[in-house]
């Protein structure tokens, strides 16, 4: 199937890409949104002092 990629998606915070599969008639058979990023805050915040959380987690999103 023909695939149209939108990569990267833009004008928002974060990373994403969209893959659109077109059938023989040129209609959309399916579309997939994928997020190609992960930093692991959920894991590396473990073990950090609780009072430091307000200085670490705002770096999840600077917008």
């Amino acid at each position: 199937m023909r695939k149209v990629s939108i990569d990267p998606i833009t004008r928002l915070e974060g990373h994403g890409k969209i893959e659109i599969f077109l059938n023989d008639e040129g209609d959309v058979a399916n579309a997939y949104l994928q997020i190609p990023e992960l930093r692991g805050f959920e894991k590396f915040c473990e073990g950090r002092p609780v009072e430091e959380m307000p200085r670490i987690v705002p770096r999840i999103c600077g917008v």
Partner: protein
Amino acid sequence: MAKPKVALYWAAACGGCDVAVLDTNEKILDIANIADIVLWPVALDFKYHHIEAMEDKAIDLCLFNGAIRNSEQEKIAKLLRNKSKVMVAFGACACFGGIPALGNLTNRAEIFQRVYVEAQSDDNSNKVLPQTLTKVSEGELELPELFDTVSTLAQVVDVEYFVPGCPPPVDIILKVVDAFAKGQLPPVGSVIGSDKTCCDECDRVKEEKKITKIYRPHEIIPDPKKCLLEQGVICCGPATRGGCGLRCVKANMPCRGCFGPPPKVADQGAALVSAIASIYQGNTEEEIAQMVEEVVDPVGTFYRFALADSMLKRKRMGPTEGERK
């Protein structure tokens, strides 16, 4: 004559550096006047294939923020390096690893386990983990490979300039843009900040650095006029490059080192271990043990923003920790 071309890109980032560029307010229009922005995912709709189509060195200036922790980020860093005359590591993440570099205290397997299997909000009973290649009925989908280790931009490509800070202050951003516009960039390899430490530039009253107890920042309300270290609060100022305007200290919070190590300090965390242990007054085994106990998270405090740039770079995982899946 064609306007110079500028690209901005974000890797393992939060968007704060891009917002900082926008915080230049009306001056952003000056930037747009003097240059053609050819990539800026937060604000403009250019795609990777537009960059791939360019000649090598067609981009005059690339401001690259975010750390490198997956194969796509590494690929785009190399792509932009090929297409750019000048590459700037913009912000603490690109310069030193930043907050994402705390991921070097763990690895991919542990992160996947926590995020996709253990997290209380997960609805993933089949324990599906992200794959680099996924077959669907229509074809194939690809995701980048998450690395175990976070790298700085300079560990992956050659970098001409470093703009530290989380985020870089507006006045430093404008200094860089101005220097670029006038063709007056400093020597290659420069870090755009002060050559002194934050401690040197701090105007709090400093008497004698001698403490007998370390307080966690929430345990006391520090006197806003006196040195934080002298009040027993760990402040990373002595081993942090200046130039930030002491934004945190002015809010009565200790520095956490987002401008990275000062000149001549090879390893920020080691310098801070040395500094804190030096000022602590304690010589008996008990007093020393108490000091060690009072520093609740040495690695996370002394390497808060610069773990990827440190000599050890990452935690050595034990044989049973984070088994590769």
